[in-house]
């Protein structure tokens, strides 16, 4: 499905995100060659602690996204509450205040669709656990642009609705367990 070399990774997660990301992110080495952009559904009006939590657990740099920030390898960017996170074609981040999509802001679809546009076949997109349908349309857009679509196996996921919806929208997606996803990302760097 994917032909080009991977240039960036996008991840979407909702209910159960913390546990899922705790399997995937900590093994990545500080020198990891790709940037990761991550949308987790978080309530508006509160400061998100995700970046702090994962910075403490991870070797890679972890931070909350800022508008116009150029993307760096070996860094994970978390979307900030109440803003959508997008990628520009010059590979910098952009935030937006547009209306929520599927009741979500940040929205996984919004990130995935803009990243598919910016990276095309160079994108790896991963939909993890969650109890809604966000991410399904985005994953489809990634696959249509030639990127690699990965979905956490709904069996064993904390909440299966989001991975199931993603598989329905994108039947060609690789379906992997969290542990397999973690290994895949480590190998991806060496590919």
């Amino acid at each position: 499905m994917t032909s080009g070399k991977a240039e960036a990774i996008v991840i979407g997660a909702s209910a159960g995100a913390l546990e899922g990301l705790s399997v995937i992110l900590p093994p990545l080495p500080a020198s990891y060659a790709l940037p990761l952009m991550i949308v987790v559904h978080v309530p508006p009006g509160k400061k998100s602690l995700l970046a702090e939590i994962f910075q403490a657990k991870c070797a890679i740099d972890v931070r909350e996204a800022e508008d116009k920030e150029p993307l760096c390898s070996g860094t994970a960017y978390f979307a900030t509450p109440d803003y959508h996170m997008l990628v520009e074609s010059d590979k910098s981040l952009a935030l937006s205040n547009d209306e929520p999509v599927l009741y979500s802001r940040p929205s996984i679809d919004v990130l995935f669709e803009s990243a598919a546009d910016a990276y095309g076949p160079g994108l790896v997109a991963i939909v993890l656990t969650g109890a809604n349908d966000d991410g399904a349309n985005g994953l489809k857009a990634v696959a249509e642009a030639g990127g690699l679509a990965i979905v956490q196996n709904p069996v064993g996921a904390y909440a299966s609705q989001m991975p199931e919806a993603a598989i329905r929208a994108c039947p060609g997606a690789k379906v992997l367990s969290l542990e397999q996803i973690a290994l895949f990302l480590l190998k991806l760097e060496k590919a």
Partner: protein
Amino acid sequence: MSEKIEDIEIQLLLEALYKRFHYDFRNYAQASIKRRLKQAREQLGFASFSALQESLLHDPTMLLRLLGYLTVQVSELFRDPSYFRAIREKVVPHLRTYPSLKVWIAGCSSGEELYSFVILFREEGLEERTLFYATDINQDALAKAEAGIYDLSRIQLFTENHRNSGGKSSLSDYYSAAYGSAAFDKSLRKQVVFSDHSLVTDAVFAEMHMVSCRNVLIYFDRALQDRALGLFKESLARKGFLGLGAKETMRFSEHSQSFTDYVREEKIYQKSAR
């Protein structure tokens, strides 16, 4: 790699919008404008952006419909209560020393930020000596701002925000509710000038003591951000204040030297004395 057809079409559409109507979205942040245009194309029922462009140039009703998609903004009264708390506790004491004040709400959209400021200034006893400028490029949004009518379902959030911002009165003092809507009192508009103004193409129009422009610059590319920040710099009086959105930063701008952090965590800046 050659440019995607869709990207060419979008550029041409924005060019047409500028050449024909002088609305300049050409330097807006691409990813979001593209998303909005896609939404407009689908919902207005066009197969391609070229078809939408043709209609824009020949159907007089299309402009307003398209603008509705390009400039839609949703905000809240007292959005980010901590911002308004900082204005109240740290900026107001400074503003109090002036006999008369001018405050510019740039990109006021449907007015939520404006009413927040007017209410706060009334609570602090500054309203009478303040002239508020509320500007936007979207006429439709300006009309909504001037009407000051919001869906009643949003009032609970507005009320919580107001309380968390250190509000000294009850928000219900300022609106009357009927038929599912809350209409804000017209006395709040007594000191307000509503005007059509573009941060992209228009110039400075008055000397301000405070400019609040939140979550507008994120829609601009860096060059345009610099233009807008330059306007604010020119417009502000010596030691005047600039408030930006929580996730907006001056860091990447050529004007960063002209401002100092005043309340860093709330993105409130002060124009340097120089």
